[in-house]
């Protein structure tokens, strides 16, 4: 990748396109927009591969961070923050979960799901509004009509729960 070889890009894309697309589509909600963002994300990764620093996380995590940033930018520029209902109507029915998904192959999905299920709804909602909808703690507090301190506490407590619960699977994530 760092040598900007097109075949490396293809291999990296084949390995990570679905997880990145899942994140991007969840954020921007419109399939065509999500595909444009996905293209931009892999292009950016390919262009900046030479600057990738292994001490700053795994390649997939780096990719997802870029994907989220680009998707949130696209969401903001479109001026639309959709709802879950919009998302469901945009997802193609054939786009079902695939057996070869790396998370499934790692055999950790069920355990991670348990961690997510154990997350109190209020904390999960706050985390998802921040992570998937690009809302700041101030905006979330206003939207949910809760004090800012309460909202920061929910995000912090929820994240600490996930960190602790996911610790055993750290290497696989």
């Amino acid at each position: 990748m760092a040598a900007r070889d097109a075949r490396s890009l293809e291999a990296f894309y084949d390995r990570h396109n679905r997880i990145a697309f899942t994140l991007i589509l969840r954020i921007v909600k419109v399939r065509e927009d999500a595909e444009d963002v996905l293209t931009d994300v892999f292009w950016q990764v390919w262009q900046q591969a030479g600057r990738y620093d292994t001490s700053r996380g795994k390649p997939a995590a780096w990719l997802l961070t870029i994907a989220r940033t680009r998707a949130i930018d696209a969401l903001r520029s479109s001026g639309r923050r959709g709802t879950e209902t919009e998302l469901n109507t945009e997802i193609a029915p054939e786009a079902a979960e695939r057996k070869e998904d790396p998370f499934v192959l790692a055999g950790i999905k069920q355990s991670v799901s348990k961690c997510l299920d154990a997350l109190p709804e209020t904390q999960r909602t706050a985390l998802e509004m921040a992570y998937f909808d690009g809302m700041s703690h101030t905006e979330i507090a206003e939207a949910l009509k809760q004090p800012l301190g309460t909202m920061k506490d929910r995000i912090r407590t929820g994240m600490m729960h996930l960190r602790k619960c996911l610790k055993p699977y750290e290497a696989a994530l």
Partner: protein
Amino acid sequence: MKHRQVTEELQERAILYAAGALDENERREYARHLNEDDCDVCRSEVLESEAAAQSLLMSLPVQTPSESVKKRLLAQAEALSNRPAPTPERKGSFFGLAGWLAAAALVVLLVVTFSSNSTLRSQVAALNSRVVELENQAGAQRTLLASLTSDRIINLAGQGTTPNARARIFWDENARRWRVYVSGLPQAASARSYQLWFVPKTGKPVSAQVFNTNPDGSAQMEIAVPSEVTALAAAAVTDEPAGGRPQPTGGFVLLGNTE
């Protein structure tokens, strides 16, 4: 300032950053702290929290993009890979040119100082000519690479009667140039043209280029962004009478925001 150990406050800030929950100014300041202060304590907290936040993805059904995304991406990459002088070689190429320039300058100096030999004069003229040629080539390569490696990309989506049309603009802000790639846009009707517009945040659109697509629906063009065009809000293509118009009169066929 680098931190030596994690505190509850630092942990909360890292968590809010990783979750994407900081306000814009806070986020910018924290990103600066991570990058410029190179704070390992905070970075470690951020990485752990980012991994935890990314686990939220696992509650979602996995989605698959269409094959066209991969084709488009690889076509772009192949095009760039096949160009001469990718980044590492660009240095070599540049220094090679510098070597040429230095050699030529030395020859010129020697010739002017020590010789009036006509043979040498003709050699100097040939070298000077070669230097000019290499300078031109290097300039063109730098322009091309700068536009292809530009961080700013504007995606234009098909509108109205051309929903399948797409365009992508690589925007080299320093050189003030656009490199535009259009696909899926049928050729303009008889006595009609397509017209690309700079759409500023305030004021009227400015014509960028009048064009038509190839039979396969594609078009490529390189455009200088005029100095009076600043603070762009969007790029747009409209369907206009042949030769274009000073201001848009036809419907949008492609439209994309700059941010």
